[in-house]
């Protein structure tokens, strides 16, 4: 366990050192994050220039949700997507052999190898607009609520990790799967609105297939004080369920790998 954590730390340190060579990229990323953020806030302002509430969420509650969404999508770009892209490349070129021969759990290895450090700016940006929204709502956030928010956010990350890795496992069978990710990205962008707003069939997709309902909506519900502990419990069960499913599928996928170079 300690070795697993220290390995992740080393990969992270390497990524930081690597990216610090390209400092200009920091400013480019800053500019691009600002563009994306301003666009999102403009849309928010547009919607609420025509109405006071959207599906029971007022402007700043929805801004808080947007903050949570921004954080989670950034986590995907910081770590999940680059790691999975590398995994897919390794499977196709046979480099996955090198992962299997190392004395560390293969799933853990392929999950920590890549870190896009500059993308962390979006995590900060998401937390900032969420903080701004909570402040404007003028509600007291208790320590308990903040802690619960942290837990639900981590569970949300776990859920997205499991779903993204499950799609990545398709690479053990199929060759071109970039469009599958594009489809899931598009579906995931539905997380910008509270899931309760969608019609039934979309809600089913967003709950069971791409569980944005649990990943984004639940943490946002915690921070806007509209959730009970039972929902958080369900979220935890869903997260564990997806992680368990991933473990089973991962083991099964490994048996499919024959090594392109062997």
């Amino acid at each position: 366990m300690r070795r697993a954590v220290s390995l992740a730390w080393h990969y992270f340190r390497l990524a930081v050192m690597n990216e610090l060579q390209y400092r200009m990229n920091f400013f480019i990323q800053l500019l691009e994050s600002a563009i994306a953020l301003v666009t999102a806030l403009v849309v928010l302002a547009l919607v609420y220039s025509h109405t006071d509430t959207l599906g029971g969420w007022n402007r700043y509650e929805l801004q808080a949700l947007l903050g949570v969404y921004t954080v989670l999508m950034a986590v995907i770009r910081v770590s999940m997507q680059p790691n999975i892209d590398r995994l897919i490349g390794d499977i196709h070129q046979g480099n996955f052999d090198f992962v299997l021969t190392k004395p560390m759990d293969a799933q853990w290895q392929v999950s920590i190898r890549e870190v896009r450090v500059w993308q962390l700016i979006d995590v900060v940006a998401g937390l900032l607009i969420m903080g701004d929204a909570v402040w404007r709502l003028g509600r007291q956030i208790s320590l308990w609520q903040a802690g619960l928010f942290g837990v639900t956010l981590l569970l949300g990350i776990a859920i997205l990790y499991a779903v993204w890795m499950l799609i990545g496992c398709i690479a053990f069978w199929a060759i071109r799967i970039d469009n599958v990710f594009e489809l899931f990205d598009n579906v995931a962008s539905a997380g910008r609105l509270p899931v309760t707003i969608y019609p039934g069939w979309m809600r089913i997709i967003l709950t069971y297939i791409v569980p944005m309902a649990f990943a984004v909506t639940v943490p946002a519900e915690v921070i806007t004080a509209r959730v009970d502990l039972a929902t958080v419990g369900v979220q935890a069960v869903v997260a564990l369920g997806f992680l368990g499913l991933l473990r089973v599928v991962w083991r099964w996928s490994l048996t499919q790998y024959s090594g392109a170079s062997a």
Partner: protein
Amino acid sequence: MQQLFSVYTKMTTTSTQVMLQYRLTNLFWLLGMVFEPLIYLVMWRTVASQQGGSVAGYSIASLTGYYIAWTLVRQWNIALTPFGFEQRVRQGQLTPLLLRPLHPFHYDLADFIALRIVGTLYWIPIGVGLVWFLHPQLSGDPLVIGLFCVSLVLSFLMRFVLVYALGMAVFWTTRVSALFNLYFAVETILSGRLVPQALLPAWTQTIANFLPFRWSFGFPIEIIIGKLSLSQILTGIGIQCAWGLGAAVVFGWLWRAGIKRYSAVGA
């Protein structure tokens, strides 16, 4: 001219056949593309129903029509992005293209026409399904439908040339992704992709009329949902042609100036 035409037909046929090979990939791609407007539609339908059935002159049925037409117009709005062009210049892939007998632009355009044909074929069942289930308000007038098709093709050509010309910036610097993203962010808001133009504040609408974005996206949609009068449609088609031709002139100029600076990487 005749030779050019036959090159286009050959290239388009070949590319169409290549693209039709990847059926599942195409399907996933199209499904993803339909999901995006569904989110906007749900959002504005919720707003409209909270405001008593309509928002800024858009009823729920016309909003539905807007976002269904959106899926087809989005198809025809795909162009060779500057990012694609950046990769060509940075990795030197442009060099072999320069050796071909025709200007690279022609090969790209033929390729993208093929994509539009394949995309539209795939779109038809989805479009019919959406119309069937969602009961949108669309114009049934054959003249309007004809003019819609004309403006659809023009929106493709106009945006293709514009975005291609934008890609020429790569000849001067390869650090342009922030510039391109800014362009696309402004386009997203002002073109009508995110919201129908009528829902923007009045001053923004005025600005949008003087920029190209609206004419390549929101304009054809507004035709088919019956928001525009005949004279408005004809004026708009004229504006589309003007933007397309203007962009072509600027592109020719930028290309001639830029290609001199191109030092083939990897040659």
